[in-house]
């Protein structure tokens, strides 16, 4: 039977188990949408391609499986770029399929023509420009394999309109390609690492997004408990170990607790698992862990010795490494080290004084955690509310905190929450947003409304680009420029404009009760929560400084 390129793409997406695709149609991908018309795949019409990309990310981050988004050529593709770059930096398996002008027009500066292929080389794991419909039979299965294998990442497939329309005979459909088996570690290196751990007096586990990707949380917990090793996580690794785990010491880095960063400074051995020694985690990298030997395990060999020279480097899947090393690890209670009590203590105060009529960020996050079901998925935008969430929200399950870490993209939270809600319609999803960030993709409220998704959008409203204001206060002589909003939109009114229920905790008689009611009610809502504009995230490492050079949060030392 003869199929067009567009029909082949849709058929192959079905074969790969894709049930939902987010995107926006346009001239150069209309054949693809015409083929989708006849398919059982559900299409979610985003209102901006960046939103579509983040919805696909929300699905991929919450499930761990590749998710697909569509965009047309030209502005469709360029609008998608931020979401793809975001997926690259956080290793998220997203497959973007873009329409391109017909082959004969490529290079002529045709209407809505841009070099999508060229522009996405540095922000994808790999990309394809498809020249013939026949190539789709290998490119699509290969893209799924690539996106999910090894260190996951985004793949872009650019398909000219004539290739979407080209009809070819397909007698047999290709099958799904198996994801590459993660590499196993070298025995000798495992023994060397085990010896280093057994000999260490003050070891620390430093875990990241790789721990989530590998599903290695339970094995990390086994190692930590057997050998009494405190664990600290990067922003990407939060949830690998449940908050409240006896050896969990919280997040590392720029907004870590003082005690957590001091733990790294005192350590004599760092066991780095699925991390990349990012500057927000390590601070000034030369001053990171000055007394420690370092074991670094990663599935991506290029991360080893990239930012920091280490003593023992292991190219391996984390589960493979941990399964191999666990039998070689001696039980050890490391009393002296563990008695320093690095665990997260719940008694930490608010980061500043809270005046009546405002929520303290810590109290607000504790209330949200109390009123949401245990399996709720949290997404965030980028800024102060994101760091407060990382500091105070008790994340208990892997893949229930979705946040733009590497690229730090404002506007991520709400569309990512849509994706998570599409992947898990039976669960509650809360998008924790800032009043700055929410405006960057607020158009996607239309999707929440149309699909009646169980998404609670909670806006931490402080009238500022808060983290910018904070840096201006602390490091730029309080020269506040371009960080305060004189227009303070009525988000509750905006929500109602989209047909979504809203709650203003600022004007409620019983804000706490109002929050409880809003979170308990099924279906979407927008919640506006007033936060003081002067509230900062503490403690904070001086940008460019070592992690021991922290400002504020002295009260948080315990």
């Amino acid at each position: 039977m003869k199929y067009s390129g567009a029909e082949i793409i849709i058929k192959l997406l079905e074969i790969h188990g894709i049930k939902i695709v987010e995107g926006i149609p346009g001239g150069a991908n209309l054949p693809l949408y015409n083929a989708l018309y006849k398919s059982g795949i559900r299409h979610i019409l985003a209102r901006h391609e960046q939103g579509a990309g983040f919805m696909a990310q929300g699905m991929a981050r919450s499930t761990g499986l590749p998710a697909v988004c569509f965009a047309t050529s030209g502005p469709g593709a360029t609008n998608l770029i931020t979401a793809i770059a975001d997926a690259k930096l956080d290793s998220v398996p997203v497959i973007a399929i873009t329409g391109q002008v017909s082959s004969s027009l490529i290079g002529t500066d045709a209407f809505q023509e841009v070099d999508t292929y060229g522009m996405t080389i540095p922000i994808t794991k790999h990309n394809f420009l498809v020249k013939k419909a026949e190539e789709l039979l290998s490119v699509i299965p290969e893209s799924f394999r690539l996106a999910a294998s090894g260190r996951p990442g985004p793949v872009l497939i650019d398909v000219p309109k004539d290739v979407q329309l080209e009809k070819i005979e397909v007698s047999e459909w290709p099958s799904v390609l198996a994801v590459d088996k993660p590499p196993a570690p070298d025995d000798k290196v495992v023994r060397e690492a085990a010896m280093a751990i057994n000999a260490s007096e003050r070891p620390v586990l430093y875990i990241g997004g790789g721990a989530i990707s590998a599903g290695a949380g339970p094995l990390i917990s086994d190692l930590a408990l057997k050998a009494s090793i405190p664990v600290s996580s990067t922003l990407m690794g939060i949830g690998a170990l449940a908050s409240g785990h006896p050896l969990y010491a919280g997040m590392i880095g720029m907004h870590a607790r003082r005690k957590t960063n001091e733990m790294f400074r005192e350590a004599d051995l760092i066991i780095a698992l699925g991390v990349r020694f990012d500057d927000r985690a390590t601070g000034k990298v030369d001053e990171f862990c000055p007394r420690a030997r370092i074991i670094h395990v990663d599935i991506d060999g290029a991360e080893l010795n990239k930012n920091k020279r280490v003593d023992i480097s292991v190219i391996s899947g984390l589960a493979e490494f941990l399964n191999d090393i666990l039998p070689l690890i001696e039980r050890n209670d490391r009393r002296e080290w563990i008695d320093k009590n690095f665990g997260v203590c719940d008694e930490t105060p608010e980061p500043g004084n809270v005046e009546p009529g405002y929520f303290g960020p810590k109290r607000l996050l504790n209330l949200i955690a109390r009123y949401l079901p245990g399996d709720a998925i949290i997404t965030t935008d980028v800024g102060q509310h994101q760091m407060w969430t990382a500091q105070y929200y008790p994340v208990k399950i892997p893949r229930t905190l979705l946040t733009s870490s590497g690229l730090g993209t404002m506007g991520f939270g709400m569309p990512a929450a849509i994706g998570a809600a599409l992947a898990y319609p039976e669960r509650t999803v809360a998008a924790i947003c800032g009043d700055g960030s929410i405006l960057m993709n607020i158009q996607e409220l239309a999707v929440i409304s149309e699909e009646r998704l169980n998404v609670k959008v909670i806006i931490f409203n402080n009238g500022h680009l808060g983290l910018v204001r904070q840096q201006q206060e602390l490091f730029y002589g309080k020269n506040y420029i371009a960080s305060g909003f004189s227009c303070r939109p009525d988000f509750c009114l905006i929500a109602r404009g989209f047909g979504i229920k809203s709650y203003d905790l600022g004007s409620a008689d019983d804000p706490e009760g109002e929050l409880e009611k809003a979170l308990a009610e099924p279906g979407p809502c927008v919640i506006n929560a007033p936060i003081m504009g002067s509230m900062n995230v503490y403690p904070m490492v001086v940008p460019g400084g070592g992690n021991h050079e922290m400002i504020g949060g002295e009260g948080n030392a315990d």
Partner: protein
Amino acid sequence: MQTKNAKTMEGIVIELEVNNHAGVMSHVAGLFSRRGFNLEGILCGSIGDGSKSRMYLLVRDDEKLEQIIKQLRKLYDVVSVSVRRDYDLALYSRIHEDNKGTKNFT
């Protein structure tokens, strides 16, 4: 003319075998600019039946080399990567003369 072009080349050669299609050069060159690596010269030609090409990248022999090699290995269309310290670099400086061959265009 000759004196300027004949300056001695320094560095080492990274030899790549790559799938021969239009995007490969962009991926390799893009990697160098994206990661801030220096690239002093490129020679490239197809091999065998034309489905593969071999590229010779002239780079500085410095602390970035290890990371360059690792990143090149990650490229989808790069089949193999090897470092050649024994190659004659004179070709890179002679390239303008050699290209003209025996015909004298100037």
